[in-house]
């Protein structure tokens, strides 16, 4: 899987960045309507659809752009729909997840597809949120960890396999039809 050349102009990168952030926000917004609580009463748990986008950008465009998109998504979601509390949870989760991607980028050269990356980054994201909750609510909340990890593995797998299928198809479109 080849990466996109970085020789684009700042203007085109800004436009692309804005489009990607909007897409990430849309994914986050839409998934917030899915009432997972009925099946899986885990506080603050989400499908993690926006992570599909962040992973794609991280590994196929640029790590820095992915980090920026992730940060902007967390901030805007918190401003529009959240509160300082949810921002703290979200931010720590996203930070853990991105850190994991950075490590995987250099450690797992070609040994993982998006499936494995998705499972690991989803798990880290949820661990980050749990850590944030534990800081605020005390250590009792750590009892949610096993269920959270199983759910992360499940939904992370779905997102990762989905990206495995989608990435080769999206990449040419983002390149703008070159080649």
């Amino acid at each position: 899987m080849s990466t996109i050349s970085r020789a684009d102009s700042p203007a085109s990168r800004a436009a692309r960045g804005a489009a990607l952030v909007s897409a990430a926000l849309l994914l986050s917004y839409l998934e917030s309507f899915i009432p997972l609580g009925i099946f899986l009463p885990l506080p603050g748990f989400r499908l993690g659809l926006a992570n599909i986008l962040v992973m794609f950008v991280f590994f196929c465009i640029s790590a820095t752009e992915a980090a920026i998109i992730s940060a902007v998504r967390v901030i805007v979601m918190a401003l529009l729909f959240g509160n300082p509390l949810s921002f703290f949870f979200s931010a720590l989760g996203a930070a853990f997840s991105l850190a994991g991607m950075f490590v995987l980028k250099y450690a797992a050269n070609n040994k993982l597809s998006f499936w494995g990356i998705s499972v690991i980054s989803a798990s880290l994201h949820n661990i980050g949120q749990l850590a944030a909750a534990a800081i605020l609510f005390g250590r009792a909340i750590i009892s949610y960890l096993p269920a959270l990890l199983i759910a992360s593995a499940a939904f992370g797998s779905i997102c990762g396999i989905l990206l495995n299928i989608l990435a080769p198809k999206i990449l040419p479109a983002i390149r703008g039809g070159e080649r």
Partner: protein
Amino acid sequence: MGVVRTKISPGDIIATAAILLAAVFLLAAGSISGTDAGYVEILIGSRRTERFDLYEDREIVIESNGITLTIKIEKGGVSVSHSDCPDQVCVYTGRIEKGGESIICAPAGVAITITGGGGGDVDHIAG
């Protein structure tokens, strides 16, 4: 620069299995050590804590972050019978009765935990 594959590879299976194994291990470890149950501790907004006897039936209404929660302590267990919060996770969690278990309402910033305590004749069981 690392490049990512799009074909499923053994690494993926190992990663997923590792996470699942960690979960199972934590579950097993958690069920061995438990704390005894005596009180219901309600943490509101990470600043206020209220404590109630687990064995005295009562209904408590609290408000935090603009969300009102109705908490029922009944027959040695706690549950959130009603909540204004958008995701209702606290209500769906259902009833808890064992020490260490908790119900969390993330939007409201409320954590309800069953903690130990109780009479002086109860020994503390090391986990």
